[in-house]
């Protein structure tokens, strides 16, 4: 039922939002090379998965784009602007929900606004709307420790959307959850991301997940961290889990496995 067709969002006409040229990062004064010579572009509104084993520099690349760490070489721009430090064009999400346990779900969602200015009633309405969007309408006033791991990540997702950032950086956001929860959240993530039309970078070490979600897969290899290849994923959206059973899908999985050398 899912036929490989050219995806419009990843077409050549789309505007480039992130561009990296020879991006490198070393730690400890050059002792550890975390990332080397990464060249890539990310088109507006596209969903890009970063896949590879531990130590391949996926998380480093994400933090470089967020401006949380400084690159040691190359150039890196977001919306054509050079990255020199943390900026609010991007929002982040981690494997741990990183919620503040002394704030209710909705207060956690409002945190990014509070950091920048005083909260208006429009912000509050938006926060309630976002919580509804992630399926937590009835849990707005629950504290994080009263929520399950999956629900906590939903709150973190709502908070990420509340930032208003048009680039979402997600570092294995559902990696600590069980298989069923993760699958459900992946489907919802796809729906939500296409609703808000954000550009998404999604780090994972699960090849199936990477391909299923993405328009483009950045395949990375470790020691030193390198961007081995960009793999285009041509399947139409919306996608359903049945897609993973098709031969076309499995051919792509095999291709990525080949690049990673993990057959």
């Amino acid at each position, binding site marked *: 039922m899912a036929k490989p067709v050219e995806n419009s969002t990843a077409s050549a006409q789309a505007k480039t939002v992130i561009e990296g040229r020879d991006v490198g990062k070393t730690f400890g004064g050059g002792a550890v090379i975390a990332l080397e010579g990464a060249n890539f572009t990310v088109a507006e509104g596209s969903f890009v998965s970063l896949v590879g084993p531990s130590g391949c520099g996926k998380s480093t690349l994400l*933090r470089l784009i*967020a401006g*949380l760490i400084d690159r040691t070489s190359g150039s890196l721009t977001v919306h054509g602007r050079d990255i020199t430090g*943390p*900026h*609010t064009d*991007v*929002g*982040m999400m*981690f494997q*741990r929900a*990183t919620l*503040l*346990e*002394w704030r*209710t779900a*909705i*207060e956690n969602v409002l*945190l*990014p606004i*509070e*950091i*920048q200015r005083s909260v208006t*009633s429009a912000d*509050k309405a938006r926060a309630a709307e976002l919580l509804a969007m992630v399926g937590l309408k009835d849990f*707005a*006033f*629950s*504290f994080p*420790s*009263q929520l399950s791991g999956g629900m906590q990540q939903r709150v973190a997702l709502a908070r990420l959307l509340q*930032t208003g950032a048009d680039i979402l950086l997600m570092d294995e956001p559902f990696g600590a959850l069980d298989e069923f929860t993760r699958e459900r959240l992946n489907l919802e993530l796809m729906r939500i991301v296409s609703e808000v039309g954000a550009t998404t970078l999604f780090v994972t070490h699960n090849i199936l997940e990477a391909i299923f979600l993405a328009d483009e897969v950045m395949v990375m290899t470790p020691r030193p961290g390198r961007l081995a290849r960009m793999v285009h994923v041509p399947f139409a959206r919306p996608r359903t889990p049945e897609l993973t059973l098709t031969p076309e899908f499995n051919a792509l999985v095999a291709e990525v496995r080949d690049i990673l050398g993990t057959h």
Partner: protein
Amino acid sequence: MHNDQNRMFWILRAAPHLLLLAAILAAWEGAVATGLITTIMIPRPSAIGGAIVELYVTKGTIYEHFFITLTEAVVGFGIGAAVAIALAVSSSLSENFGRYVSPYAVVLNVTPGIALTPIIIAWFGYGMGSKIALAAVICFFPIFVNTLTGLRQTDEDREELFRSFGASQRQVFMQLRVPAALPLMFAGLKIGLTTALIGAVVAEFAQATAGVGVLMSRFSFSLNMASSLATLLSMTLIGLLLFYTMEFLDDRIVFWRREARMAAVSRARARAWKSGAAH
């Protein structure tokens, strides 16, 4: 209905404990009455009961001393805690300040504060001042070290998150570091409060004219063991009073660590939100 059941449950739970206590007291009373225990050092429970009635009800001698000791402990604790928290906050804000203050904090920690008792009495006199000073000195360290440890805890992911929101240092400190440090700080405050009481009582043993410590030594050295134990009870009461006050504050402020409180706060915030939306 629900309350009644709770009460019944309580009685059922407390009954074996009370029975055991009664049995111990009866055996003790019996042993003294029948001459099994002859020493005057172990008074009968009934004699202790009589002393309690005298000290707490008929004569009411204890109250003056009770409040003096309580005041000494609380004021000393207040001073010690204020200095400790101020220094811990400064140390966590400025790496240099922390670095150059820490050796002195270590010296203060390894010195038994109690050893300063005679000197502090020489400095501050026989009155309440010296008791307050000793209480402040010996409760300082646990509060300082717990607060500092709490403030220095860093959660990389959360700090990165705050920075990605464009938070200032001040915002990271006030909205992330401080709340995250509160549970540990309260643990330190609880230890400090107990220590402050010890400081006040020991200073009273050494030299004083009033306070439960004075009363205690007076009764002990006139071998009035029943009254001495009755006085000890007041120290337990002060200890319990102080501990549960702090426990209450902990419960209110660090509510996110308590299941029951969390539910209540959650309801209250939902109400506040709705009434805010109605305006």
